[in-house]
């Protein structure tokens, strides 16, 4: 991902800042600037999610694209935030412990980097609540 493209999303990735439609009460992470329910009648404002949620489903990725190969095997999961929306992220825990329904909270981690010379991408992954 190019530098401007990451930079544009950096606040979202660092702090789980998504959006909220004041008209219908919907919460969106990843952020949407068009409410899928109210569309042009929606009133979209930024919203910071608490970072608590639970694992909806998961996999352990053994074969990854180039930038992620050094992390394999890693846990990829869909997480449902307490406020409602679902997102895709990694869960940092033992492969024996991961399960559907696991309560998780956000953690600040490196997402990847563009080689040894390129920039480093940081963002939000998840860890079990009990740790």
């Amino acid at each position, binding site marked *: 991902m190019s530098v401007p493209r990451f930079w544009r999303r950096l606040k979202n990735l660092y702090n789980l800042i998504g959006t909220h439609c004041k008209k219908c009460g919907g919460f969106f992470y990843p952020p949407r600037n068009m409410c899928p329910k109210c569309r042009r009648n929606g009133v979209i404002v930024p919203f910071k999610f608490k970072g608590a949620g639970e694992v909806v489903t998961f996999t352990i990725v053994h074969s990854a694209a180039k930038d992620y190969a050094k*992390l394999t095997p890693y846990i990829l999961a869909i997480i449902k935030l307490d406020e409602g929306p679902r997102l895709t992220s990694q869960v940092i825990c033992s492969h024996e412990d991961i399960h559907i329904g696991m309560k998780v909270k956000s953690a*600040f981690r490196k997402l990847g980097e563009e080689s040894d010379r390129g920039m480093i991408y*940081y963002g939000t992954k998840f860890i079990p609540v009990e740790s």
Partner: protein
Amino acid sequence: MNVGIVSYGVYIPRYRIKVEEIAKVWGANANSIIDGLMVYEKSVPDMDEDTITIAVEAARNAINRAGINPEKIGAIYTGSESHPYAVKPSSTIVAEAVGATPDLTLADFEFACKAGTAAIQTCMGMVDSDMIELGMAIGSDVSQGAPGDALEYTAAAGGVAYILGKNNQVANIESTYSFTTDTPDFWRREGMPYPEHGGRFTGEPGYFKHVTSAAQGLMERMGTKPSDYDYAVFHQPNGKFPTRAAKMLGFTNEQIKPGLVVPRLGNTYSGSCMMGLAATLDIAKAEDRIFMTSFGSGAGSDAFSFVVTDKIEEIRNGAPSVEKYLENPIYINYATYARHKGKIKL
């Protein structure tokens, strides 16, 4: 001085490697190393952790512990000898990740293991002069020891953040004093992966001269003596150096015990004595007096005198303690450690 610690937070990665495991790889005698260093194991970062992620977790813990409004933080200084970027501040990422941008000043500090206490002093000056309301000083490192080098047994990962201000102090800073000379006991050249050090030269002319001079200098200036303090914390490159420095200065083993975190943690470099102070604050009561002296190779020491206030009880449980982070470690072998530390080139 009317500046003090308003909150603090720490972060230590889950992984540990035991001295025996490292010694086994290099055919060394683990028991003599443990006896010599008084270190049993050290923390190791996860593959996606670095100085910045550790600094952010510590900073968020500091903010959450006392319910600080991050927009009131006017300065952030991150001290480290392992900033991920040679050029580009770690502190901008920390500031963004804690929600302190854009109304603040910041910079990264480097002074071997004492960059974090230098950051505390800088924040003290800025708070005392009313340039800022709150300042954040961070010491964070994923320190490097060359494979097979003596440093490999102790070079650990961890971070500590202190928020300094005038109001709602949990520990007042009575005074600070620094002692600095040009003493090349340890360095890392630009672009080099591991530091070099002067072996035994790092001891007497480096660590002991600077630590004892700064400590004595502060006590002389304040008219205090070791028995006036409930606790003392010294920079902990291993367990032996701070124990010996304490003895040389007249502090007892009981005074340094709560803050001596190095045997189970290793040397967190810029986070080292700041972690010891945090562990001491975790158990301190109102009116307790704490003495702290850092050391950074190159070389210099910053000595501080703190008095704990009754506000400490209000924020004590607002974030995980040092002990909490030291519990339930995940032990890894040398191969996994090498992978985590990027020692295997892909």
